[in-house]
């Protein structure tokens, strides 16, 4: 027999000033099943909670209804209180008579009637509530980090520091990502390599971290605590164990025509190459598309020269299967393609470059040894124009509607580095707005203007007209309304950042969502910024949205902390409000399987006896650890064989009936 106790909160005067509590109490007295009613000023206070606990013990009530604020606010509080008094916490129901009643209605009588109605519905539902016990599942104590840029590196190091095994999968031959390509970092102007390389080395030496470079994740199954992942280690054509990184092969390779990815195409590389000297692992890879041996079958010079015999032309891709408790996605970003911005002549003139190319051109380890020269004639520029927002804040088909966030700062950095190294070179920056929200950022940008004499122009460039020797940049100073025609030697475009092209595929594989710009979506933009909607999968860095290095590292450490939180548990408890199948009623049409976004429902064959005959029947089965409790399957199921615990068909119908009474 269900004995319902109802607890009505005044919330000070928040509820009681609009809802006549006495009247509510009186109305509830007549409802069958309600055996105890109590009202109090602050039900969520300790005294209030004790009222609930005492009633459970003393009044022998076995269902609790609290008419108070939104369940999103205090459902957890009252469930805890019930549990403390020995009642299954899922026997508690909340009637929302504050946010949905007293705060939105002015008419006291109407609000009181509605409060009665809502509480009655909660009672009707509570009577049908069942004891629910969350399931438990073990945790594989190993983390997978996808992506080896600064985000992935930081996350891996933090998790390893906490004592857990980490596998890091990086698509390219070396970790380091975009940060390894940068020259200096804002706002402190540290040398990027100087702060990144030690971390890369730490990672390589860390016994807890296993690095799969030149590898890709190809399949992910399972759920938090128990992800099953397939990794494809692409054939490097080098035996990692034998290679000493001596570099003879790189130097002697006759095929040196490929454009270096690391140098943004500003230099050539050999067919056998390590992307950059500090690469981790310091093992080359053969680019089979340009290697003479692979293309023509003749050559094999590197194999002849290799002192340890590490070259293996026959090497095949290798498949690794591994289980993980958590996954951190740190796949980074790209710059947009500038094909459609013909007015800037990026594709048509070598002296128009992107910000990332500029980083390589001023880098001491870059193709020019750090000497800034024009790609066209290797002469030092005397006038450099920087153009911001190339494709950012651009809602046309060719751009991105969002702000790329990092360009204002790196452009200020570029201009400052330029003026510092070459004081006789003029720098002009075209901008729409300068955005410098960040610690020390505004001061940094102002320094560029005030101390380094960088000319900031609010306005944009209409078109660049390449002349015989210079680039005629036609722009406007929108504030003064004057047209500008600058004869520049070099133009640097702050191309918009964008999500990686493979983001869709990664999202699909991991069952996480992406936004309209194809960045991964966090579980909550404010309160759960590193989690995804899929438990156990976390986000770090620019794959979630444009980010600078400090933010990326902060998020990486946050993601690591979240991951460690899961790894540190031996068992995970899950939400018990999940779907369940009544197999006797299930017809096995399996529509539920087709629509389940979590692959939580599987097919099972059962034996059944009817009329003395044994028959085999196909039915659905719910994996309670995978099910997240959306209830979509319950509607796809016509006979109602699949139902949702905590929000059952019967419960919702009872609520409807109670509200309509």
């Amino acid at each position, binding site marked *: 027999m269900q004995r319902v106790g109802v607890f009505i909160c005044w919330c000070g005067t928040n509820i009681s000033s609009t809802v006549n509590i006495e009247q509510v109490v009186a109305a509830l007295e007549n409802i069958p099943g309600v055996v105890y009613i109590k009202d109090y000023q602050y039900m969520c206070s300790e005294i209030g909670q004790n009222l609930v606990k005492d009633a459970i013990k003393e009044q022998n009530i076995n269902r609790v209804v609290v008419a108070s604020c939104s369940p999103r606010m205090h459902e957890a509080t009252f469930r805890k209180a019930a549990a403390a008094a020995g009642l299954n916490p899922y026997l508690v129901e909340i009637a929302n008579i504050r946010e949905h009643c007293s705060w939105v209605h002015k008419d006291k009588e109407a609000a009181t009637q509605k409060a009665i109605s809502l509480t009655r519905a909660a009672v009707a539902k509570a009577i049908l509530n069942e004891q629910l016990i969350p399931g438990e599942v073990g945790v594989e104590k190993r983390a997978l980090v996808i992506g080896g840029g600064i985000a992935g590196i930081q996350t891996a190091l933090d998790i390893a520091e906490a004592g857990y095994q980490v596998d890091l999968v990086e698509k390219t031959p070396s970790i380091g990502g975009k940060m390894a390509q940068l020259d200096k970092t804002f706002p402190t102007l540290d040398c990027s390599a100087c702060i990144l390389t030690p971390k890369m080395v730490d990672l390589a030496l860390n016994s807890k971290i296993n690095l799969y470079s030149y590898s890709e994740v190809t399949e992910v199954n399972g759920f938090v605590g128990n992800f099953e992942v397939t990794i494809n280690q692409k054939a490097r054509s080098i035996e990692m164990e034998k290679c000493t990184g001596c570099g003879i092969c790189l130097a002697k390779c006759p095929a040196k025509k490929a454009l270096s990815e690391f140098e943004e195409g500003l230099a050539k590389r050999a067919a056998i190459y390590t992307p950059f000297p500090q690469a981790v692992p310091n093992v080359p890879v053969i680019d089979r598309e340009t290697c003479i041996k692979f293309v023509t079958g003749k050559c094999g010079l590197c194999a002849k020269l290799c002192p340890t015999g590490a070259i293996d032309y026959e090497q095949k891709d290798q498949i690794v299967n591994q289980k993980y408790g958590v996954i951190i996605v740190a796949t980074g970003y790209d710059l947009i393609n500038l094909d*459609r*911005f*013909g*007015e800037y*002549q990026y*594709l*048509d003139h070598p002296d128009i470059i992107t910000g990332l190319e500029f980083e390589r051109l001023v880098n001491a380890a870059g193709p020019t040894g750090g000497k800034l020269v024009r790609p066209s004639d290797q002469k030092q520029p005397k006038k450099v124009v920087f153009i911001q927002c190339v494709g950012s804040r651009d809602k046309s*088909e060719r751009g991105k509607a969002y702000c790329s966030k990092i360009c204002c700062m790196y452009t200020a950095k570029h201009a400052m580095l330029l003026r510092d190294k070459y004081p006789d070179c003029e720098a002009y920056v075209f901008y729409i707005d300068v955005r410098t929200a960040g610690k020390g950022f505004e001061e940094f940008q102002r320094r560029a203007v005030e101390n380094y004499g960088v000319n900031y122009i609010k306005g944009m460039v209409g*078109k*660049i*007209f*390449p*002349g*015989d020797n210079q680039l005629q940049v036609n722009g406007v100073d929108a504030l003064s309304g004057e047209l500008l025609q600058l004869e520049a030697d070099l133009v640097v475009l702050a191309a918009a950042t964008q999500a990686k092209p493979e983001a869709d595929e990664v999202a699909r594989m991991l069952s996480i969502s992406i936004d309209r710009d194809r960045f991964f979506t966090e579980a909550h933009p404010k309160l759960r910024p590193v989690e995804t909607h899929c438990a156990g999968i976390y986000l770090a860095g620019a794959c979630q949205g444009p980010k600078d290095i400090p933010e990326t590292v902060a998020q990486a450490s946050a993601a690591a902390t979240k991951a460690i939180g899961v790894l540190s548990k031996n068992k995970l408890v899950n939400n018990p409000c999940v779907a369940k199948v009544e197999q006797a009623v299930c017809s096995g049409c399996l529509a539920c399987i087709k629509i389940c976004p979590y692959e939580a429902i599987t097919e099972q064959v059962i034996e059944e006896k009817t009329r003395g005959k044994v028959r085999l029947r196909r039915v659905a089965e719910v994996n309670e650890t995978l099910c997240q409790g959306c209830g979509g399957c319950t509607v796809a199921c016509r006979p109602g064989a699949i139902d949702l615990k905590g929000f059952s068909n019967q419960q919702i119908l009872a609520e409807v009936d109670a509200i309509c009474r």
Partner: protein
Amino acid sequence: MNYSYYPGCTLKTKAQGLEACAFKSAQVLGVNLVEQEEWQCCGAVYPLAADEIGTKLASVRSLVAARTKGEKLVTLCAACHQVIKRVNHDMKTKEDMREKVNNYLQLKEDYQGESEVIHYLELLRDEVGFESLAKKVKVSLAGRKVAAYYGCLLLRPREIMDFDDPERPTILEKFLESLGASPVNYPYRTECCGGYLSIEREEVVEKMVNKIIDSALQQGAEEIVTACPLCKYNLENSSLCQKGEIVVSYFTELLAESLQVKEG
């Protein structure tokens, strides 16, 4: 293959050369251009106001006629192309306008933008093919340094005209290459000549066209081709042209020349 051909007012008067050469060349190329039986002036400028319907009807009538014949509608004048193509786009995408126009025209079957509008250059590129055009060239224009001038109307707005990249188009250059000529790339080839401003603001137009011609000359151009009668007029009216620095012709004139069908 048969195509419905929309000539436009200028081609029947000031720009007869553009049309005559196009027709003769088409014959050689095995393309049958059939002039529409009835056509009205398209209005020369696409009516930009959202509340204008009447000025778009002439285009719709031609589009409907092409639909009836089941043929693509081919244009030659850049201005007509812009007007008809954009009106067609409106009929396809703007429900409100479609309803009003159809209500007014009282056709047997509502027109919903079914016809396809292509410019003569697109015909050469997509239907004839520049490669097969090159094979039919009788007199190669080898050694001639020609600057292609695009103007605005064929290229912009990009999404609607869907003609070529408005900032770095290639169709005219590829066309010239197929005739054996050496196209000259110069940055002003997509800048506006001033268009109809020449009616009351000649001084503005003068500045605009001189920049274009100057840029072409700097890159070594010896002549300019264009697809638009108004562009040609404005370019020729420039002081640089008047001084005899450069000549301007229609692209079809070069085409006819290389196919040896140009008279005189």
